[in-house]
């Protein structure tokens, strides 16, 4: 696909002191403030892969916010995603190449910076997600390595001297968090910064304020660090945004960057593999039953429109046909399925006008490409449905009343009730369509033991209709298996 020899040099500000930290690693610390851009050659492929991997993690953080996940849960989900896509091990790890992990982490961050600096909205969301990722990693960092990291940069705080500590002893003691029964004996260290650098602590009255200075106890030091990370990155993003027009000259990068920046608007490109699992074939007769039990709203809608109207327009056939192919419908079964569905047509008309297209989508005609099924991102962003079309994403393209009616009609037999609707509609209104779909999955699979926040497994959101359906069928199968064991 991409020419791997086609190397792209990252041009960034040269590190002025050129200092190299003496360490057995090129990257001395697991945590990174991303002050220095990558100054090495990368292939276009690496460029894209690293960014995409990181985007998956950031997108999951975004949907955690949309779902109001508590911090601990967000942390668990995010760490699991990190482990999968952007792992970062401690210096003590011996079996992994720590340097290349850190290099990928740095590269992914900088590519996404380019992709997300281009509008105020994207900058804001990127900033929030990246700062959260940093917090999650900071919290999970080994104490010693974290101290090493903190020592490696200057945070511009003033350590409060004894004299001042005595002056404010009463106030500082009142702010101490004492465990029951614990005496005030610990000699807490305090750091003085302008209050504007720790707005969170100020808002919660957790620090002493005098003349615009905040006296931050060492246990709250992380607030300064997170704020510093955020402020740094905000500045850098604005800077990059101004410098970007020059970058746009590199035509190979522009489409990649455009693609990436859409990841936030419509969910990430699905990591779902389009190839049907072997031995998992389905027949034309099975489709209706599976549809009623396992389809997401978009496919439910296409299926029902087809059954009702005995017809589907072009983009609807495309979206649904490819979905069924990946679900395991063979070409022979597909022809049979569509022939039966289009029952108003003569054999002649069907063979002439539709059969070719079906075979084409299976890669048996024309340029014989193996077309993958459309992901949520593609459904949300391409081929917007016209007034008489049935394709698209119902969460995005249906009027709110119609969506609510359809949801109840399709899923009330799976446990969805009208009391669930306000929450779903709120998410829809905020534009988090995949979050709404994921929530419907959770509700309709509650009887299979799926809990709120678990998504389609491990907290993952819906990114592909086939992923939705396959997970739904897996859940049913594992329940049946379990039942058999009991019997």
């Amino acid at each position: 696909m991409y020419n791997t020899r086609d190397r792209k040099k990252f041009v960034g500000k040269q590190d002025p002191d050129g200092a190299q930290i003496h360490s057995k690693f090129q990257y001395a610390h697991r945590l990174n403030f991303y002050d220095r851009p990558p100054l090495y050659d990368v292939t276009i492929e690496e460029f894209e892969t690293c960014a995409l991997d990181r985007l998956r993690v950031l997108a999951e953080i975004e949907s955690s916010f949309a779902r109001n996940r508590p911090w601990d849960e967000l942390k668990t989900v995010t760490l699991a995603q990190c482990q999968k896509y952007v792992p970062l091990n401690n210096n003590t790890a011996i079996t992994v190449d720590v340097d290349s992990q850190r290099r990928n982490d740095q590269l992914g961050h900088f590519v996404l910076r380019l992709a997300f600096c281009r509008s105020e909205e994207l900058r804001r969301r990127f900033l929030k997600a990246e700062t959260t990722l940093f917090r999650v990693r900071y919290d999970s960092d080994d104490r010693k390595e974290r101290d090493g990291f903190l020592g490696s940069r200057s945070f511009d705080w003033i350590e409060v001297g004894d004299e001042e500590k005595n002056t404010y002893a009463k106030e500082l003691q009142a702010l101490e968090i004492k465990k029951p029964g614990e005496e005030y004996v610990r000699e807490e260290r305090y750091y003085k910064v302008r209050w504007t650098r720790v707005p969170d602590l100020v808002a919660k009255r957790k620090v002493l304020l005098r003349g615009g200075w905040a006296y931050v106890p060492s246990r709250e030091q992380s607030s300064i660090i997170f704020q510093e990370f955020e402020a740094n990155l905000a500045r850098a993003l604005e800077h990059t945004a101004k410098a970007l027009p020059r970058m746009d000259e590199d035509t190979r990068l522009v489409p990649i960057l455009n693609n990436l920046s859409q990841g936030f608007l419509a969910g990430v490109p699905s990591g779902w593999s389009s190839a049907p699992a072997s031995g998992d074939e389905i027949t034309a007769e099975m489709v209706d039953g599976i549809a009623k039990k396992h389809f997401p709203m978009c496919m439910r809608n296409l299926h029902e429109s087809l059954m009702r109207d005995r017809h589907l327009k072009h983009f609807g056939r495309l979206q649904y046909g490819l979905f069924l192919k990946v679900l395991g419908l063979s070409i022979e079964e597909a022809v049979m399925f569509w022939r039966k569905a289009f029952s108003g047509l003569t054999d002649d008309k069907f063979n002439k006008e539709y059969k070719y297209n079906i075979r084409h989508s299976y890669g048996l005609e024309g340029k014989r490409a193996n077309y993958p099924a459309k992901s949520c991102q593609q459904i949300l962003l391409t081929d917007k449905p016209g007034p008489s079309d049935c394709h698209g994403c119902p969460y995005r393209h249906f009027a709110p009343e119609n969506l609510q009616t359809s949801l109840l009609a399709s899923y009330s037999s799976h446990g969805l009730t009208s009391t669930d609707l306000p929450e779903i509609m709120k998410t829809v209104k905020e534009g988090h369509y995949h979050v709404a779909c994921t929530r419907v999955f959770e509700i309709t699979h509650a009887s299979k033991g799926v809990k709120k926040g678990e998504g389609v497994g491990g907290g993952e959101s819906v990114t592909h209709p086939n992923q939705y359906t396959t997970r739904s069928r897996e859940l049913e199968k594992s329940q049946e298996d379990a039942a058999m064991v009991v019997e």
Partner: protein
Amino acid sequence: MSLADTDASPEVMLAFYRLLYPFKSVFNWLNHEHTPTKLFTHREFAFTLQQDVYLRYNSFNTHDDLKKQVCALNPTRFEIGPVYTARPRDKKTVRSAAFTPIKRELVFDIDMTDYDGTRTCCSAADICVRCWAFIAAAVKVLHTALEDQFGFRHILWVYSGRRGIHCWVSDEEAMELTDDQRRAVVGALTVIEGGKEMAKKVNVRLGNKGLPPSLWPASETLRLLFDPLILRDQDVFASESNWETLLQLVPDSTITEKLRDKWSNDPARTSSTKWSDLKRAIYKAYDEGSPEFIRLTNALEDIVIQYTYPRLDAEVSKHRNHLLKAPFCVHPKTGRVCVPVDPSRVDDFDPSAVPTVGGLLREINENGESGGEGTDWAKTSLKPFVDMLDRHTAGIMDDVRRSKRAAAGSDLSW
């Protein structure tokens, strides 16, 4: 010409803008220097016209330009917004990304309507010299916190013309606050929370702990005010529904039941007596220093705060791009001018004695010849208020000059 005090008709307003409104002083205050800077030229002004038409995104090069437009439009009032990255009047022609608010005074709005339930003299939109005491308390508490804790020095208080007060902080650090930082100030200063249905509106402690230190000075000021204002002057706990609210704030059913009996059988008991009843009951029931005793005395401290602490309109302060009525505008209902208030003498301020636009125009008529447009305020009772703003502005300008000199000094060469 015989004018009623409350007259704020278009003719009267036009005469006010032409002869009396201190455009130059307001310009200096917003601009921080004598020659126009972006603090003025990129600043949004919004006009409310007679027919409730609202015109946003106006901006002006000089105070004369502003005056000309104000006299041409003759608005019932005008508001001041943030300083943008471009001139607000060019908003339509610049890219939206190039048009964002960057600077703005930190502002607060306190309105007497939020004090219902803690005052008995008036309700809703009414205000009298007695309930001004609540505003005076708010000014003292907030002024001290802004100075001592946040380190601000250029704080202007302005009577809102009817039933409240506005606060404008012009320090450089305050001008540059992000919305997040503004929210943090509001968070730190907001103590009264929860709507009508929430009896206990002060929840600032962690468990049985003392008040956070940032509220110590406020608590001290308000404790001294509670007896004369709430217990004596307002006699807040006289009515049954009001003393019932008080009992709901006392977390001890044995004590509250006894007091409920006592107070319903003796409707003439004053608020002061009831407060003493409550204190005595606590001392009688528990040993000093016991956890129950601490819990109840903490509750008393919270009650004092709940009845006297400033009520902030948080939304006004949280966003850089919030508009706020300009000082020296006229309130259309009362005809009163929104004059600055000296925080060190806020107890002596009488809202009913504030100059009205009708009264000021009468003063000019009685004093004979108009001396030249725009400076006539000097011959009226508006003068001390304009002087107060000018003195305030001089302080800001001193600071700006100093920091400019410091910046220039570092690269000065012979």
